[in-house]
């Protein structure tokens, strides 16, 4: 019998632990020529803001060794267009839709969450708190326990949808933020967003990216992302969605074994649009080879390896 790959992220039930990472899969429709969305655990949308956003000046992409630095700048059509033009398509697929949201202020997060509350076809909200808090002079919402908890609490009050909170990478201090967000009522945590990064064009002596700096994703960051997931897993009881550089089933298993209940695939989809499906299949095969019938036997099953 095929192993059971279903998982629960608090109130959110997924039939596969493999989903897309926000911002790398558009609104799902862009990839329908390449895979059947219903094979995914969930589709996480590009982060939506209240108003449409044009995004950052190009270039927005720079490839680095085993990595990608991007400075998209949350380019998105805004809440209204999303609900009118993007959501109907997704609603018709048999896949849970997780809507990623971001605001410039705590109130904007709340407003987004309220607007999604009443809408059919949304399985969960993912609060992307890895973006700058305009009121606090541009510090990331997610960089301090207090602000991270604030924004979580306010969203929690604004919606009864399952609430995922996506954390930025922090060294040190991620455990504290994760703990505060747990306290404030999140149902699950997503770890990690991109690492702050910069690429310089040495001929022009300018940053390659129009925005100057960007975020690093892809296999380059995987060992860091696994570390962060493992660390957060030891600090909170919430289910985790692990991501950062996952390209193969083996990569995904590292996160699951480290303590993630689900995984998201971002940059790898660009190279291989079928990566998510292949990863699901590979996880199932891994469980079967070991005679395991349920994904839960793997999650957080890391045995000690020495002194750490």
């Amino acid at each position, binding site marked *: 019998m095929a192993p059971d790959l279903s998982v629960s992220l608090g109130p959110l039930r997924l039939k596969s632990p493999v989903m897309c990472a926000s911002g790398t899969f558009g609104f799902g429709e862009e990839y329908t*020529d390449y895979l059947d969305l219903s094979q995914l655990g969930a589709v996480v949308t590009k982060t939506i803001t209240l108003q449409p956003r044009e995004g950052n000046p190009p270039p927005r992409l720079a*490839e680095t060794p085993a990595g990608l630095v991007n400075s998209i700048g949350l380019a998105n059509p805004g809440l209204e267009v999303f609900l009118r033009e993007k959501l109907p398509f997704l609603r018709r697929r048999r896949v849970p839709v997780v809507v990623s949201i971001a605001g410039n202020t705590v109130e904007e997060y709340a407003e987004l969450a309220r607007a999604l509350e009443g809408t059919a076809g949304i399985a969960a909200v993912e609060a992307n708190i890895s973006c700058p808090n305009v009121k606090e002079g541009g510090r990331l919402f997610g960089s301090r326990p207090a602000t991270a908890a604030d924004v979580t609490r306010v969203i929690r009050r604004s919606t009864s949808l399952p609430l995922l909170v996506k954390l930025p990478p922090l060294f040190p201090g991620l455990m504290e933020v994760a703990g505060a967000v747990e306290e404030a009522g999140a149902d699950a945590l997503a770890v990690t967003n991109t690492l702050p990064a910069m690429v310089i064009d040495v001929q022009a002596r300018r940053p390659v990216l129009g925005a100057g700096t960007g975020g690093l994703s892809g296999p380059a960051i995987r060992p860091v992302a696994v570390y962060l997931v493992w660390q957060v897993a030891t600090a909170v009881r919430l289910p985790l969605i692990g991501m950062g550089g996952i390209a193969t089933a083996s990569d995904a298993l590292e996160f699951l074994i480290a303590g993630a209940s689900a995984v998201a695939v971002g*940059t790898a989809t660009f190279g291989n649009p079928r990566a998510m499906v292949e990863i699901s299949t590979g996880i199932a095969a891994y469980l079967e080879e070991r005679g395991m019938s349920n994904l839960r036997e793997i999650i957080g099953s890391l045995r000690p390896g020495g002194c750490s």
Partner: protein
Amino acid sequence: MATLEKGEIIANRCLAGPYWEIAVRLPQVAVAARPGQFVHVRCGAGLWPLLRRPFSLFAVDREAGEIRLVYQVKGTGTLALTKKQPGEELDVMGPLGLGFPLEPGLRKIWLVGGGVGMAPLYFLAREAAASGLTCDVFLGAVTAAGLLHQELWRGVAARLELATEDGTAGHKGVVTDLVETVLRGNRPAAIYACGPLGMSRRLAVMAAAAGVTGYASLESRMACGVGACQGCAVRLKDGSYRLVCRDGPVFRLEEVEGEPDGP
């Protein structure tokens, strides 16, 4: 419809200097492809490079189910591509993007290509010829070796004008100089361009002044190639951002910013 197709490499050879040509058996891509569209190619193996690279379709044989690309070796991806041997598989997404529109009723069009940018224009010229259009072709390169496939061009061009920056072949100078001169006496139904951004911008200004319409294929770095990542944005004349992979790569010349970027 675009597909993800893995097809056998039939040939992969150096044309001249850094210019190569690769032929691949990809029936599904071939049958759907239109001039000006591109394919998104996994150039290396594993994670090296991580992202695909976009290349315009240079020629398509729908019966044989084959496509040909002409590519210039620039960095990691194109260098990796040169290592692929005939018989190996190439992993390709495509055809992608919106190609050159050939509106009905056109009689004579001009094709203006700069450097390896001439690639998609050849596919266009073949299709145009098949539907009875006349093509005047203007090609520019840095040096004579960059004027690729002249014998093929001669077969499709009613008129073929060449320019090289170093004067080793044709007119000495840039291809837009040639176009400017000919525009004084002549007027095509439309201009179709592909080349460096500077070339397309200059053509946009010239075409506007001459009251001629046209199209240019633009470039940008890409990640997804399908409109999902918002990475390939270019700024158009009206200040808005558009996605090269989804809204292009072909844009109306009228939409192309006429002035170079500030410092």
